[in-house]
């Protein structure tokens, strides 16, 4: 039997897979790396076939399921939900319940915030600082919806609140777009994944960037000057989940995997690889020591209280955001 995982890069460390396969010798694990958009795209193309377990972010399940019917309801009785931190579990359940069926449970959570080399860029603390001419050509961001939302927050708006009124949201998006187009000249490049960001940061080609906290922690390992900075307006928080594709063929194995990675000693291994925090009780304590230090260096309690969870994306918003991103991409900047 094969367990085909559709997940984020680094969410399936080799060590864990080997351990899992030792424990269940008749299961082979095959991993495909992906991101939120591609997960949906892939599952849409297959009608939910081809994979046995997917790990989209909690806000990306509802609309996709409504539109394309790509997941199957979870059998919560097979999942060791007691381990999970109730806050996250309830948040995810609330976001992913359709007709009484639950489609996702939390796995790991993390934030998107800022990262800076404090020797080069000592006073980065808000999203708008990425556009500070002082760092011209030495900052980076990821051209995805996160930066739209972040910019909206930094402009003092609450985009999630506007999801109910799409016209108003469009206005907001237009303003955000203007802001980001103006900022384009300041940017060295839009990063695509953790890697190019790491490379640019470590080599000193850039000094500040939007980042996943996990990437920042990894870099902190190598260079203590590079730290994660939760922005003033609050780090944006995502929860990556477990969801089972509609035509998965190895549900048993999938549940086994879920329960397996929720075991405390495995969580440490997982978090060492992902850099994110497991959504279990006392998840932060299960981080490896070095990561723990990085997290503690990055977050104060105030920052934690200020976290902004992503809200569910209503139908249509994705299109509007997509177009805005294209506009920014196509604009001729520096």
């Amino acid at each position, binding site marked *: 039997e094969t367990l085909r995982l559709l997940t984020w890069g680094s969410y399936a460390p080799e060590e864990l897979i080997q351990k899992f396969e030792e424990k269940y010798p008749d299961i082979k694990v095959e991993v495909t790396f992906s991101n939120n*958009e*591609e997960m*949906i795209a892939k599952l849409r193309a297959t009608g939910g076939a081809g994979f046995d377990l997917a790990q989209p972010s909690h806000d990306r399940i509802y609309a996709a399921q*409504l539109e394309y019917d790509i997941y199957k309801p979870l059998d919560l009785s097979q999942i060791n939900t007691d381990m999970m931190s109730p806050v996250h579990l309830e948040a995810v359940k609330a976001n992913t319940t359709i007709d009484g069926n639950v489609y996702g449970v939390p796995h790991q959570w993390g934030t998107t915030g800022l990262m800076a080399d404090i020797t080069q860029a000592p006073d980065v603390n808000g999203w708008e600082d990425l556009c500070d001419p002082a760092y011209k050509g030495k900052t980076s961001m990821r051209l995805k919806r996160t930066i739209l939302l972040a910019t909206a927050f930094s402009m003092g708006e609450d985009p999630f609140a506007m999801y109910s009124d799409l016209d108003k949201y469009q206005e907001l998006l237009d303003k955000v777009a203007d802001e980001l187009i103006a900022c384009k000249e300041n940017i060295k490049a839009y990063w695509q994944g953790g890697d190019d960001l790491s490379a640019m940061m470590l080599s000193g*080609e850039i000094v500040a960037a939007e980042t996943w906290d996990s990437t920042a922690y990894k870099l902190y390992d190598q260079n203590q000057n590079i730290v994660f900075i939760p922005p003033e307006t609050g780090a944006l928080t995502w929860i990556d989940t477990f969801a089972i594709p509609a035509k998965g063929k190895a549900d048993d194995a999938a549940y086994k995997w879920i329960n397996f990675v929720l075991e405390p000693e495995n969580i440490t291994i997982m978090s060492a690889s992902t850099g994110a925090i497991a959504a279990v009780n006392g998840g932060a304590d299960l981080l490896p020591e070095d990561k723990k230090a990085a997290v503690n260096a990055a977050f104060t309690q105030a920052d934690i209280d200020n976290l902004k969870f992503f809200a569910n994306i209503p139908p249509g918003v*994705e*299109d509007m955001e*997509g177009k805005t991103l*294209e506009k920014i991409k196509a604009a001729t900047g520096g």
Partner: protein
Amino acid sequence: MSADAKRLSLILLFAPFALWISLLIILPHIGMVALSLREKVAPRVYEFGFGNYIDFINEPIYWNTLLRTGSMSLLVTVLALLIGFPVAYYIAKIAGKRSRGALFLMCLIPLWVSDLIRAFGWILLLRETGVVSSMLIWTGMTTEGIEFLYNDVTVVVGLVYTVILFMIVPLVSTLDGMGDDMIEAGYNLGGNTLTVLRRIIIPYAMPGIVAGCIVVFMLTAGSYLTPILLGGKNSSWFTEQIYDQFITRFNWESGAAFGILLLAFTSLVVWLGLRLSGQSLANTVAKT
């Protein structure tokens, strides 16, 4: 062979061709046209209409990107021709018999690895902390690292690099077919180097030139990785738009419309090119 056996064997030979072309080329494109004519009105609700095309027309970003893709592809094609022609001529006409094969093989070297690795190589060379920049610092020509990536020039260079083989190969094979005596006759009758080039070599090589240009243009317009990876924040290539429609916005309908538009646009350019050069697809691409 009897008439019946002949007919049967014709059918047997025709079948794989027909299956291939109809199932993998024609039907999918028809399907794509059909898909592109579906308008999304609500979740899981679609209507027939030209909405996707109208969206395209109404949104300058889209057609600007298409025009940009087209014009940069043309530029790449012209550059590839200008850079590749002397090399092809050298291989076909000046290099000795022995070195000719070796040079030709060397031309094919970049084909050995994928687009991805080629782009990866360029990134390693051109990034601010890359080899070229470091060399410049080392030689003292500059004190700070220079970022060569993420601009149009780099994209063009990268694309020329990727496609130039497809220019050189047909050129070498047509030039190879031209006897040396043709060139010598050109000189013998009083032509100078320029006349011989303009009146004899280029007209003779025309089918190869056109074949190379068509393939290069199509490959460039349809390339994905090179402009994305080397262009960075300013790339915006039309294939990327298509990819975005399909993958990041799950909007297959407009993605299909974009695909059709790209195909129609590039075909139009190729058709114009064939018209202007007085060649036909069958006697250029097919011959080489």
